[in-house]
C-alpha cells in the first residue's frame, strides 16, 4: 500500500532538496507537493518527463491573500495524481506557461489570467477566456475581495 506514492515523495525530496513536510501522501493515488515557484519549471519537467506524469488534468488558480496560488494537477496513466502547488506574490503574479508541453494548458492558463489576474509568461497570442472582450481591466472575479456588485452592470455594457 502506498509504495509508489512514497517513492514519488522520496524522489522529489532527494532530487530537489524539498522539505519533507512539504510533500504529503494524502491517500492511495494522491500526492500533494508545495514547491518553490523559483524552481517549479525543473520540478514540473522532471515529474512529466522522468516520473511518468504525462497527463495534465487541469490547473487550479487560488487567491491566497497576499499571494496567488496555482496547483498543477498531473497524473500517471496508472491513476496516481501529483498536485504541484506554487505561490507567487499578488503584486507581481508571474508564472511561466506549460502550454508548450501540454497544449491543453492554454485554456487553463487563460482562465487564471482572466479570473485571478495571473500573468502567464510565454502564452501564445489568442482569444481571451472566459470573460467577454469588453470586460473592464483590473477586475478579477475569483479574487476574494471581488463581489458580483463590485462593478456596475452599466460598466460592462459600456465596454462591450
Amino acid at each position: 500500500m502506498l509504495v509508489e506514492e512514497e517513492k514519488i515523495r522520496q524522489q522529489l525530496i532527494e532530487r530537489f532538496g524539498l522539505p519533507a513536510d512539504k510533500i504529503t501522501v494524502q491517500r492511495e493515488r494522491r500526492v500533494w507537493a508545495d514547491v518553490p515557484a523559483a524552481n517549479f519549471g525543473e520540478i514540473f519537467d522532471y515529474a512529466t518527463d522522468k516520473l511518468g506524469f504525462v497527463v495534465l488534468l487541469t490547473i487550479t488558480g487560488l487567491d491566497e491573500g497576499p499571494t496567488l496560488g496555482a496547483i498543477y494537477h498531473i497524473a500517471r496513466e496508472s491513476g496516481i495524481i501529483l498536485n504541484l502547488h506554487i505561490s507567487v506574490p499578488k503584486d507581481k503574479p508571474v508564472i511561466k506557461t506549460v502550454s508548450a508541453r501540454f497544449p491543453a494548458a492554454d485554456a487553463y492558463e487563460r482562465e487564471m489570467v482572466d479570473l485571478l489576474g495571473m500573468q502567464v509568461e510565454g502564452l501564445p497570442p489568442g482569444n481571451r477566456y472566459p470573460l467577454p472582450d469588453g470586460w473592464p481591466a483590473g477586475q478579477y472575479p475569483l479574487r476574494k475581495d471581488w463581489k458580483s456588485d463590485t462593478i456596475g452592470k452599466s460598466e460592462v455594457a459600456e465596454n462591450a
Partner: protein
Amino acid sequence: MPEREVKLTIGPQHPMLKEPESFLLTLRGEKITDMTVRLGYNHRGIEKACEQRTYIQDMYLVERVCGICSHSHSTCFIQTVEEIAGLAVPKRGLYIRTLIAELERIHSHLLWLGVAGHEIGFDTLLMYTWRDRELVMDILALISGNRVNYGMNTIGGVRRDITAEQIPQILSAIDTLEERTKYYIQVATQEITLRERLSGVGKLSKEDATRLGAVGPTARASGVDRDVRRDDPYAAYGELSFNVITDDHSDVYGRTLVRVGELMEAYKLVRQILKQMPDGPIAVKAPRKIPAGQAISRYEAPRGEDVHYVKANGSDKPERVKVRAPTLANVQVVAHMLKDGYLADTPIVIAAIDPCFSCTDRALATTNLDNGRTDRMDWPTLRTYGIDWYSKQGIDFAELNRKLRTMRESN
C-alpha cells in the same frame, strides 16, 4: 475570379448551435486551412457562486453545470467533500450512485448517436435512438423522480433507495435497450452510407490525442487506453468488472463504435450492480461545516473526464471550487481534427466530441491570394457571383426563375 481565402464565422449564436461558442474557420475552397475557437459565452460564474454558498447548496448548483452529465458533476464534487470530511459512504449508497452514473451514460450515448445521425442527414437513426432513449429516461424518472438533474446525491451518500419492485422494471428496460443497441451496432458496422460518411472524417492520431490531451470516447477512439473508472476507481467501480472500449479507426467512425461499445458495457454494469448491491444504509450524516483541507476527484462522464478540486477552510462554505469539464479538454482537439478537412464535415466533426451543432453562416470577407487584398462581398454580389459561376458550368437558372415567376403570378 482568383483563388481566395475566406474567413467564415460560425456562432456564437447559430441556428444549429446548441450552446453559444464561436468558431472562426479559414477556408481555401472547400478545405479548412485554419480554425480558432472563442469560448466563454456560457460562463456563468459557478465557481465564484460556490464560494458564497454552503456545501449542500453547491452540490445542487454543480449538478446544473451540465444538463446531460448532471449526476457526473454532482458526484465528482461531493467525492472531494466526502474525502476532506473523512466520510465513509455506505456501500449501498456507492452502488446506487454507480447505477445512476451508468444509466446517465446510456441516455447520453443514445442521445449522441441520434445527434450524430442527424448531423449527417440520417434522421431515421435520430428517431430510432431517441425513441429508445425514452426507456432509460423513464427508468431514471422511476428511480429519482426526474428525467434529468436527478438530485440523487447527498453529501455522505444518496437520497433515495432502490426498491425491490424497481429492479425487474430496470432489468426489463435494459434487456430491450441491449437488443436495440445490437441493432445499432449492426447499422454502424454494416450500413454502408453511415460507414462511408464517417470513415476518415475528423482524423486524430493516437500521438495527437495524447499530446493535445483528448479525453473520453474521443481519446479512446484513437487507441488511447484511458478510463478513470478503471485507472482511478471511484464509487463502486473498483468492485465491478467491465471492459474499457477502445478503437483504432481514429476518426468519427471510431468514435461511434466506441460509444455503442460502451453502451453494451453499461448494460452489463447495470445488471452487475443490481445483482451485487449489498443491503444496508444508503447514506451517513454529514457535518454542516467541513474541516480545512483539499481534495481532487476524477469521474468518467459520458463525454470524458470530469475533474473537480475543492479547498475547504473549516466553515460551511468552500474556499475554492474548481471544475474542469471534458469539453474544455476536447474542444482544442477539434481545431486539430478540422484542419485540412472539408467544410461540410465541420458539423459532424464538432458533434463527434459531443457538444453539437450544424450548418454554416454566410461569407463576409475574402482575401485575394494573388495580392493579399481583402474584399467584402455583400449579398447581391454573392448572389450574382453564384449565378455566374453556375452558368459557366452550364447550369442556367433563368428558365427556373421564369417558371417560378409564372407560378407566383398565377396564384
